[in-house]
């Protein structure tokens, strides 16, 4: 039992080790991607100043910070989704997928390793992105509780990973279109979760969907913590919602991935690259 658990943990470490090697080997890609993300985030965050320059009356500091939080959480979510979807898509591209799937590592441990890497890598990128973009603005965040914001994002990460596992199965059953379908799911979360606007402005049916999106709670919790200094004690409803969504989405994600793997093995979809 212990030997089996130890082997699984070594396997999880193996996924992290492999992705660390890849990050090192593709270092300049990482730099280019980061610069692109910074530029993309700036185009969003400057909107607040643009409204003021156009004669609008808004609290520029607050709106800028709010947009920055939205852009950073969105970038983080994108990384978690992308890495989990790449669990299959990247290996298919490199041609290693069959070797990974014929290893005795359980799929849960394999996906846990991918999720752990996605979360660690995503957090480092998110913190750097927040810091670099904030340097462009004279932002004042006197009440910010960054620790609470980090806890909210970490708890939300379980849900993100669960949904990421659901999208990771798509390239498994559709080598040509699967990764793109993952972006569709990600885009839908962007629309309904209040990344750049309050969910109150959405039509009622979209507001309903926003209640089951973990990004909604991650965003509102992070904004409350950073803009208004809300502590962990006042995050009960957000953390509870995130924990429930995480507890539901993780097993569903694993079950869907297992079903997708069976389908791929029945129909010979593991081999094909594309």
């Amino acid at each position, binding site marked *: 039992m212990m030997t089996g658990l130890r082997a699984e943990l070594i396997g999880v470490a*193996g996924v992290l*080790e492999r992705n660390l090697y890849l990050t090192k080997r593709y270092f300049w890609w990482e730099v280019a991607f980061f610069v692109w993300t910074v530029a993309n985030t700036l185009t969003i965050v400057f909107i607040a100043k643009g409204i003021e320059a156009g004669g609008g009356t808004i609290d520029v500091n607050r709106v800028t910070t709010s947009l920055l939080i939205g852009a950073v959480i969105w970038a983080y979510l994108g990384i978690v989704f992308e890495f989990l979807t790449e669990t299959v898509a990247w290996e298919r591209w*490199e041609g290693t997928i069959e070797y990974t799937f014929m290893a005795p590592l359980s799929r849960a441990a394999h996906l846990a390793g991918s999720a752990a890497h996605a979360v660690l890598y995503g957090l480092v990128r998110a913190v750097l992105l927040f810091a670099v973009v904030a340097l462009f603005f004279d932002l004042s965040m006197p009440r910010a509780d960054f620790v609470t914001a980090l806890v909210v994002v970490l708890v939300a990460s379980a849900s993100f990973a669960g949904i990421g596992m659901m999208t990771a199965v798509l390239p498994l059953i559709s080598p040509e279109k699967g990764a793109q379908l993952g972006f569709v799911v990600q885009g839908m979360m962007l629309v309904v979760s209040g990344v750049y606007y309050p969910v109150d402005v959405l039509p009622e049916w979209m507001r309903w969907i926003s209640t089951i999106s973990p990004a909604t709670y991650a965003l509102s919790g992070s904004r409350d913590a950073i803009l208004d200094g809300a502590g962990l004690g006042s995050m009960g409803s957000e953390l509870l919602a995130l924990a429930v969504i995480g507890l539901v989405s993780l097993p569903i994600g694993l079950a869907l991935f297992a079903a997708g793997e069976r389908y791929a093995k*029945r129909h010979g979809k593991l081999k094909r690259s594309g």
Partner: protein
Amino acid sequence: MSQPVPVLNPAVPDPPATLAVDVAGLRKEFRRKAPRGATGPRRRKVDALAGVTFAMTRGETVAILGQNGSGKSTLVRVLSTLLLPDGGSAAVFGHDVRRDARAVRRLVNRVSVEASFFKKMSAVENLSYAARFYGMPPRRTRERIPRILEGVSFPVARRGEPMENLSRGMQQKVALARALLTAPVLLLLDEPTTGLDPRSKLEVQEFIREIRDTHDATILLCTHDLAEAEALADRVGIIDRGLLLQLEPPARLKAGYGVESLEQAFFAATGRVLADDTEDGNDGNDDERDVFA
């Protein structure tokens, strides 16, 4: 080849009576889109394995000869748990490939025609993470990887180079090292020398011979190469259109058809020439061949 690489798998079931591979009535079919403009149903059924039955004893080397699309790789994929069979059964050291897939995976490794690696990563990095998936901790890989790479005559100076800088022959040596690193008791070799230059081919064949002679491994070798099959295998099988037509020691196979070479025996069994891959029974459809070639 320099020195033998000691590979013993402690997880091997002990009773010598247990068959290493036990395949009975194995079937696998694929449904593929008909070519554009073709008449008839939009999807058609193609039998990749049409009731294959054979067994291998521990330590035996069996070569399977067949054209592209004959079902060789489908057989390898079923035995390595990458494909689910549609019928019949397949077991590795008593473990059913469907019901007990994880136990099978602990016993099996594979080298395929494409030496598939993360191309930006080095040989050592690729071997290192792959070993973790088999539960091997860093302490063991630090000791084993250099020895195994030395065993396949991989130059020390190139161990840290990205795989994409290495020749196909070098990459295939690393693929063999990756397979051996996990100490498999069933080694599935799917055209391991196809596309290699003559020197690399000889080196890889020499290493397979060494594994056969010095390691506790049963080897299933799928190949186009008649000389390779004859030189390395205890028994040679002929597979055609998903059917295993023969499985005999090379001498008996030739004697059975009253011919002098395996090439003639293959022709006598299938009515076709092994090297001629356009007549593979699948109308040259690359999509189908991609799946089960």
